């Protein structure tokens, strides 16, 4: 076993055994898939209803990744700091980068599990997708970008908000509010102009639209998020958020006083 495997194992067990984490990351999105798939499609023509359900499943899978990165990760960091584990780790011959990699791998594994479960429930509710193998791979790439951007925001929260509940609730709050106003939860065409601009700028909603575009169809994305400039912008901002979170975590959480 190495440091990465040890941290990965510990973190993923902690994710899987905490009811609040399971609720916000898996049960809550599944609940909305169930509600959305049956209540929000009354006026949708029969021939497209399964794709509408597909779009709902994509949105809620993205939301699951958002809560995993923005709430679970900072909650885990804040918890380890609050109970003195980070001090203990700082006293040991440990490489902080390996601790970080272990945490991120655990987050990606848990996020993947959540997204798969949410998608499977969507599929069980009648969601259908229309995609090519390349489109599927590109979709997975955008899911990874969602995870990285969410993890970046999560690390910033976990670094600067010291208390566990504060960190978790801040993450949940940011995830819920930004998902609601950026087109992740609300269809892009229904957003006012200003929020449509935000939806294109916010890398998570832009990635979400890209996944919907690739796996469900252009009509469901509301605009073409796959222009070269939009993709470049989404990738750069996602990576910048991740890098910002990483710098904050490594500089402040592991900093000697």
């Amino acid at each position, binding site marked *: *076993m*190495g*440091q990465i*495997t*040890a*941290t990965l*194992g*510990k973190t993923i*067990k*902690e994710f899987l*055994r*905490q009811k609040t984490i399971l609720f916000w990351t898996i049960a809550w999105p599944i609940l909305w898939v169930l509600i959305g798939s049956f209540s929000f499609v009354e006026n949708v023509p029969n021939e497209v209803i399964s794709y509408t359900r597909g779009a709902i499943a994509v949105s809620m899978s993205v939301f699951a990744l958002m809560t995993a990165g923005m709430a679970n990760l900072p909650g885990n960091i804040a918890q380890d700091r*609050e*109970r*003195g*584990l980070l*001090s*203990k*780790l*700082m*006293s*040991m*011959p*440990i490489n902080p980068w390996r601790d970080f990699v272990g945490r991120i791998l655990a987050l990606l594994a848990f996020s993947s599990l959540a997204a798969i479960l949410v998608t499977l429930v969507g599929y069980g509710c009648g969601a259908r997708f229309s995609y090519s193998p390349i489109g599927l791979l590109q979709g997975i790439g955008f899911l990874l970008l969602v995870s990285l951007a969410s993890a970046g925001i999560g690390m910033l929260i976990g670094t600067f908000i010291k208390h566990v509940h504060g960190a978790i609730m801040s993450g949940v709050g940011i995830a819920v509010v930004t998902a609601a106003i950026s087109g992740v939860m609300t269809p892009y065409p229904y957003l006012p102009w200003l929020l449509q601009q935000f939806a294109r700028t916010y890398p998570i909603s832009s990635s979400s639209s890209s996944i919907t575009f690739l796996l469900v169809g252009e009509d469901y994305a509301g605009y073409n998020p796959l222009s070269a400039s939009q993709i470049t912008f989404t990738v750069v901002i996602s990576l910048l958020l991740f890098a910002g979170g990483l710098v904050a975590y490594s500089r402040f959480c592991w900093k*000697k*006083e």
Partner: protein
Amino acid sequence: MDALNVEKLTKKYGDNEVLKGVDLKIAEGEFYALMGPNGSGKTTLASIIVSVRSPSGGKIEIYGKKPEDAKGLIGYIPQESFSSPILTGKENLMYFAGLLGYSKKAAEKIVNELLNKIGLSEDANKRVSNYSGGMRKRLEIATALFPDIKILILDEPTTGLDPSARRKFLGLIQELRKEKITVLLITHIGADAELASRVGLIDEGKIIAEDEPEGLKKASGLKDVINIETATKSEKVAKMLSKFSEKKKVLETDVGYRVYCKDVEESIPEIVRSLDAIGCKATKIETEKPSLEDVFFKLTEKMIREVS
């Protein structure tokens, strides 16, 4: 070679000087207790030794190495309970074994040995949230007992433990001494410090006295102490008792007061009469040998711990 050598260590936070040139030497295999009240700098000193904080000045050597290079030799137990409550005891130890680079097979073997040593083999697969405070502390001490660790630094390990768990925990520390592990115990509890081979008293960022427990008591000049348990505590009672005490100072305890008289036998009847006169009922009066808390009080005129 000294296990730990601290010279002229200082630590400042802005204008606040928390450590004011601390010198400390601990020999290999020694059990040293550093005792002082909250805010005296003892936790800051421990956290600098274990590389969690940086010093402002001075020098630290652990087996002749800089603290950063000696991390593998130190087992540090911070004040907080750092084990994960939703993992089992064994999973917590396996995590630390993994961090230290043990293979899964080697980790299993060492962790089982450690669980046996701390008496938690039967509860190894229970979640830590189901452990008592004492069991959790014993589990945490096991994280500092992996092979190659030579110095154990325990920061207030018995705080919050009930008397039985505290005794069990201290018994475990005594057992470890047989393995020649050097122990630095940070505490504000005199009875815990009594177990050490040497005690340092720290106040306002300086070690003010250092010796074997009995040596410190002898040097303080304190003889017997009158320990009085009262039904109620008040300024009036303390003021009255102070008349009987050396330098007119009495130490307030959780259940009453400690009075330092030159002639204990003569003073007790008078104290009883005076307490009666002011309507305070003494539930227990006894003479005791001075404790390390009394010694600290004598030297600083400060209580080492806040009374409840």
